[in-house]
């Protein structure tokens, strides 16, 4: 009896050690991706210059590019990737729907409508104004979806949430396209933002949304154990003594903060929240205490590299990361479905 | 063999091998289903009972060997030809939302219909009979989603009955039913067998009910037939130990005198030790 207990304890330890090493390895890849993202682009910059830009800034154009353009952009890509992946993982755990992602809460659609309305009425076209409109729009639509989802019989079930999300998204998008059809000026101004991109953002914008993302991240990590339990199903969680309503509300706040801040700063970027949790779960299993940190790093790596790819393939112009993501993500998604459903 | 009572086989397998994704689940299986009897397949979870049933029903193509229906290889017959002789009900089937019992039962007539003949008087007659015998006539116009588990299962049975076949294959028809409804359903099947002489093959998990209602038991262990015959022959303490990995006592059922399996379990063992 004792020896088996000890064995399983050791096995547990070994597994944790493996997962921890994996996390460090992923961190290393992230670091390399960050370097690559700073070095490559419309103009390539040597690693030596990058080093000097931070240690011995001399105001030369390449140093300026690094500090005012590439670094903020790369940091934002990382942050957005991490936030979206974590929001997606929580959504999937919460709804037990493998296709759930922040966009089914209507976050992207709400943000898009708010920004389009803002541009249409106020005629503003500054990224920081967009950010606030987007944040507000995302939050309002997510809360609406939550409220609508709890009207249906049985309360806030995954099914109700998904349907409410789909309906609100469709409704909001139709209003958005109505405005875009009626006003070509708005369309012209907004379409690049609508594609979802991290280009042209500066540090200032980053500082504005950083607190929200941080709070969201901390909340998510604090909830990770509860979400693992909740992902077993609501009845199980409740019989284990969990106050599921409270957890759901806190998780919702975390999702809104993370996804709202992401869409505010980078526009609607799909797929990260959908695909990253799947990859991560495949690698680390079902424990959200490991899933969430892995999601953060993997999400950051993926968005960073997608952005880099978008800059490199059609030089000197670039593809917005919001369009690159589905183009590399969807084939993978299809492969995953074929492969995974085959085994189950 | 001394099984002359069961020598007549309209449905039988020869060297049948069935596989999922290349992994064989049933291996080189020879089995004859006695005509006009109730045959019950028993075995542990994952032993290949359901797979075998699907193979018998032409739902699964064999990797080796063949299933024969009336002496013909079942895969050389057309789907509709087989469906007129053999009806199959999978485990917990799901009906689309809003479908009424009558709609469902009418679909059992599918193998008899064509583009032009979509609803002959015979179809109508058979559906009526199926509803009557399952006592579902009263509920015929209710949507399936409004019915209780037992009623829903009866509606599905009625659908297979409307198919008007001599052979019925049922995969755990009693799952999710309480004991009273289990007995109710099995009584219905027994009645069908008595009145219309139907050959019934089903999977049951309750060994005692299997002995009570089965004329012929097939115990399956890891894709192979462990034992076949009357409940009295098959249901031994040794069989239960080998096939289910369970220590038990076999006693006579006080009501029907068929064998009854009383599991041992740790609780009893430790109690015995304590005394």
């Amino acid at each position, binding site marked *: 009896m004792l020896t088996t207990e000890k064995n399983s304890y050791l096995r547990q330890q070994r597994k944790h050690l493996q997962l921890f090493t994996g996390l460090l390895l992923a961190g290393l890849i992230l670091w390399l991706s960050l370097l690559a993202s700073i070095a490559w682009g419309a103009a390539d910059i040597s690693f030596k210059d990058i080093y000097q830009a931070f240690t011995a800034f001399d105001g030369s154009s390449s140093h300026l590019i690094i500090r005012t353009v590439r670094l903020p952009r790369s940091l934002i890509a990382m942050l957005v990737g991490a936030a979206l992946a974590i929001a997606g993982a929580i959504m999937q755990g919460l709804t037990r729907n493998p296709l759930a992602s922040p966009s089914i809460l209507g976050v992207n659609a709400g943000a898009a409508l708010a920004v389009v309305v803002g541009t249409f009425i106020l005629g503003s076209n500054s990224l920081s104004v967009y950010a606030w409109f987007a944040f507000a729009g995302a939050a309002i639509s997510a809360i609406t979806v939550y409220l609508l989802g709890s009207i249906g019989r049985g309360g806030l079930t995954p099914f109700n949430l998904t349907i409410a999300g789909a309906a609100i998204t469709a409704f909001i998008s139709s209003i958005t396209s109505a405005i875009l059809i009626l006003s070509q000026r708005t369309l012209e101004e907004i379409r690049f933002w609508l594609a979802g991109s991290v280009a042209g953002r500066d540090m200032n914008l980053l500082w504005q949304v950083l607190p929200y993302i941080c709070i969201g991240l901390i909340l998510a990590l604090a909830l990770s154990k509860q979400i693992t339990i909740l992902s077993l199903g609501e009845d199980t969680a409740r019989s284990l003594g969990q106050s599921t309503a409270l957890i759901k509300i806190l998780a919702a706040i975390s999702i809104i903060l993370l996804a709202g801040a992401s869409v505010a700063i980078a526009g609607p970027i799909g797929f990260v929240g959908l695909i990253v949790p799947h990859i991560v779960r495949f690698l680390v299993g079902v424990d959200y205490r490991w899933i969430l940190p892995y999601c953060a790093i993997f999400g950051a790596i993926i968005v960073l590299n997608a952005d880099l790819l978008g800059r490199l393939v059609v030089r000197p112009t670039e593809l917005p990361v919001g369009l690159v993501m589905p183009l590399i993500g969807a084939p993978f998604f299809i492969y995953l479905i074929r492969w995974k459903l085959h085994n189950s | 063999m001394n099984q002359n009572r069961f020598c007549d086989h309209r449905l039988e397998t020869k060297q049948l091998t069935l596989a999922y994704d290349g992994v064989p689940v049933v291996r080189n299986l020879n089995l004859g289903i006695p005509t006009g009897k109730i045959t019950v397949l028993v075995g542990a979870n994952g032993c290949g009972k359901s797979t075998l049933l699907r193979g018998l029903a032409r739902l699964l193509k064999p990797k080796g060997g063949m299933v024969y229906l009336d002496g013909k290889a079942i895969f050389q017959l057309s789907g509709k030809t087989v469906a007129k002789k053999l009806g199959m009900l*999978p485990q917990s*089937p799901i009906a689309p939302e809003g479908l009424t019992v009558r709609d469902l039962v009418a679909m059992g007539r599918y193998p008899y219909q064509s583009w*032009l003949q979509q609803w002959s008087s015979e179809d109508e007659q058979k559906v009526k009979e199926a509803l009557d015998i399952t006592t579902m006539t009263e509920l015929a116009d209710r949507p399936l989603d409004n019915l209780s588990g037992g009623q829903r299962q009866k509606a599905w049975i009625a659908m297979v009955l409307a198919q008007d076949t001599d052979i019925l294959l049922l995969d755990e028809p009693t799952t999710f039913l309480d004991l009273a409804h289990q007995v109710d359903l099995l009584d219905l099947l027994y009645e069908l067998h008595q009145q219309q002489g139907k050959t019934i093959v089903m999977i049951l998990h309750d060994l005692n009910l299997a002995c009570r209602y089965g004329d012929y038991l097939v115990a399956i262990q890891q894709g192979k037939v462990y034992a076949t015959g009357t409940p009295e022959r098959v249901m031994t303490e040794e069989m239960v130990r080998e096939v289910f990995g369970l220590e038990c006592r076999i006693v006579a059922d006080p009501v029907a005198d068929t064998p009854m399996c009383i599991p041992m379990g740790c609780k009893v063992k430790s109690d015995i030790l304590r005394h």
Partner: protein
Amino acid sequence: MTKQWLIIRPKVLPISFHCDRRVPRVLSILTLITIVAMVISVGYGEYYISPLDVIKTLLGLQTTNTDYYFVINILRLPRTLVAFLVGVGLAIAGTITQGITRNPLAAPDIIGVNAGAALAAVTLIILLPNTPVSLLPFAAFTGALTVALLIYFLAWREGSSPVRLILVGIGFSLIANALTNLMITFGEINTVSQALVWLTGSVYGRSWSQVLALIPWIVIFGAIALILARELNTLNLGDEVARGLGSPVEWQRGLLLLTSVALAGSSVATAGTVGFVSLMAPHLGRQLVGASHEGLLPVAAMMGGMLVVGADLLGRVMFAPLELPCGIITAAIGAPYFVYLLIKNRQP
């Protein structure tokens, strides 16, 4: 026995048929509403014509004003007819996809067929703005068919499974949408505007040539769908049961999928992606006449026609003289309908 069903079984012919008793009544009411909506729609516009005059003109009777003939028969009637046909096509396509996937949310919109059509058409509008409009339907149909075939083959693994069909379809619609967005983001602004109108779905300015091009598709594949209604019923019970009943499941599913693609593709090709019709019409139909497809298909079809004709009319009336594409109206109706479904919520 005959309480619930309408049975047609003539003694002389070897023909028999049955459907839900409610079907004839529901169908005639829907038809009546549709005709009324069409008459109003044809009369409505900058140049108003009273319903009576519309009917007179349509029947070829003498009216007070000779302009009526031109305005009605040349300008307005084809538009309304296109709206109707497109609605019928989308609704039947939706009923079929929901039937074969056994998922009430699986409309062609969701499984990527429409996205394929949209991508092809938007590519044509934006990259080759000089190509004649008449080529648009072919492009859209090719796009829909390509995506449908890709989905079917990629979802195939020792047989096709409904869940895989839906998921692979979602994957493809994401790819197609991304490519469409790429065009919208980088295309020339005027063509983008045009493409956007097309994308939301509009029957603006459709002429007789489009009506005539669409009719054969709807009639032929609509008829095939009706013939296959029985197969749809059995498939709807699940693969196992359907196979147990002797239905060649893969064949039927392939044939039905092709029919659905043909209907959705030709409709989308003519009017763009008019959303939600293929989702709503079958739902509403099921509530009116039940889940058996012999009756459901015609009822859903008429419902779809009515919805699009109505949406087109509403889109013109609401912000007159501004005109909203009918696709926006159907989406705006579709969303609250979903909320209604949610509140009513039949599924636990």
